């Protein structure tokens, strides 16, 4: 090989290497930054008072984020409770019952649903859902944990439908034939055999939904009332994400208040890491 060519070759290999490790560097950088900037407030307030404290009042120097943690967890669970049945049923219909043409229409609708900016979900939720919830439960405000859960459930729906229907499509026909040959109906077959065979795909779909729901801020800040209460289904609430968004702009630089917001970011980050760890455990190929 001539020396000139070898230099070009080496240079490009170097470029590829840098691009390759960039993603690792970015994740590591973000993690380190969050830890460094998130630890001080936790240390100052005390981990127990920070994580388990029930009141958040920056003006009075109270920084308990339990309401946010519980709201994020409950809001996500609520979104799953609505989104999983809807999404899984839709996926079964899409993969097993729908005609080819209708399936194509549904698939493009689902893709569109995934592509809608979250602020638009928030707007629609604010205009349609908030007044509806207010009227349905005769509340003073319809911006509640329930409303946010409903909006989140719609937002995670495309993930659950897509991943689940892909997993269902991959179930070998032989399983379904075996079940039908035993005298099972189609519905019994799809729910007891096909979904069972596709369960790791369904689990992936759910975990991705959890990730999406936990990280969402824009849509839910518009429909959840954004008040730092302990969560109640029909009360106004504030999520981990929305807690950061709503106060960052006026928390003075270097203050405990600002640092506490970084700590919330760290807590959120830990949640997301946990979700991803669970995800990788689920998708890891089974030992035969």
């Amino acid at each position, binding site marked *: 090989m001539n020396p000139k060519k070898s230099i070009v070759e080496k240079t490009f290999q170097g470029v590829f290497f840098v691009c390759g490790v960039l993603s690792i560097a970015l994740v590591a950088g973000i993690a380190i930054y969050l830890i460094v900037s998130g630890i001080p407030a936790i240390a100052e307030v005390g981990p127990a008072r920070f994580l388990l404290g029930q009141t958040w009042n920056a003006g009075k120097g109270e920084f308990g984020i339990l309401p946010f943690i519980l709201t994020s967890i409950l809001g996500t669970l609520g979104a799953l409770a609505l989104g999983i049945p809807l999404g899984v049923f839709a996926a079964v219909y899409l993969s097993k019952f729908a005609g080819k043409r209708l399936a194509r229409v549904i698939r493009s609708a689902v893709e569109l649903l995934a592509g809608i900016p979250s602020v638009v979900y928030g707007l629609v939720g604010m205009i349609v859902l908030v007044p509806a919830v207010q009227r349905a439960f005769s509340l003073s405000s319809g911006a509640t944990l329930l409303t946010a859960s409903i909006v989140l459930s719609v937002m995670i729906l495309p993930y659950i439908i897509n991943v689940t229907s892909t997993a269902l499509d991959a179930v070998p026909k*032989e*399983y379904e*034939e*075996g079940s*039908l*040959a*035993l*005298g099972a109906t189609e519905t019994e077959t799809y729910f*007891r055999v096909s979904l069972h065979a596709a369960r790791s795909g369904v689990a992936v779909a759910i975990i991705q939904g959890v990730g999406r729901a936990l990280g969402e801020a824009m849509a839910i800040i518009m429909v959840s009332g954004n008040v730092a209460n302990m969560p109640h289904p029909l009360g106004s609430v504030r999520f981990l994400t929305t807690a950061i968004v709503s106060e960052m702009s006026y928390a003075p630089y270097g203050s405990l208040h600002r640092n506490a917001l970084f700590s919330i970011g760290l807590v959120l980050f830990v949640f997301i890491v946990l979700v991803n760890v669970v995800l990788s455990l689920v998708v890891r190929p089974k030992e*035969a």
Partner: protein
Amino acid sequence: MNSFDVDILNLWYGDNHVLHDVSLGIPARRVTALIGPSGCGKSTFLKSLNRMLDLVEGVRIEGSVLFDGQDIYAPGVDVTTLRKNVGMVFQKANAFPMSIYDNIAYGPRIHGVRKRGELDELVERSLRDAALWDEVKDRLTKSALGLSGGQQQRLCIARALAVGPQVLLLDESTSALDPISTEKIEELVSRLKRDYTVVMVTHNMQQALRVSDYAAFFLLGDLVEFAPTERLFNSPGDRRTADYVSGRFG
């Protein structure tokens, strides 16, 4: 006494006429082998007996298939009941990705058996009938996919037996197995005919000769000859049968 009486059965896949005027009676509690070269229609015929062809698009069927005197293609026939009575084991073992126990209990559960004790009993009896119990009794909760190919195929037979069928259809069920597993399943089939009607598609002439009481020879969609196996092999009434069983083509 016949399990099935098939009368002038004609079958099309789209425009392709694959079964021509097939008529035969399949005797109860005997093993009937369906033989013939690839593409002769024997598998299609087998699948017409439990209406698995319903799953194929563009199939048209004329004529009648009576099971226990009832036309299974008559309007209003409950296909799930038919398939409960006419079990099927496929060419490739298709154990579900569940435990051995749940594989066997699947059918009974579908048909409404809920009690644990009853299920336990059914699972054990079906596995014993399929000559698999001794090999798996200590690992019933383990995944069925950990079994060998031959064991999985016997599991599929046990699964079919668990719903209490009268007929067992075997679609080349030993073609993917090693000789020892094949022998086990052949022994099993010979024993099963005491209680069940068995109809098996096979490419293996020796197997047909060893296991079956009756044999039907299909060629290009025609039922050429149907006779007791011994006679069909030793003194066939049709020239084409003679050529096939003596290995001159196929």
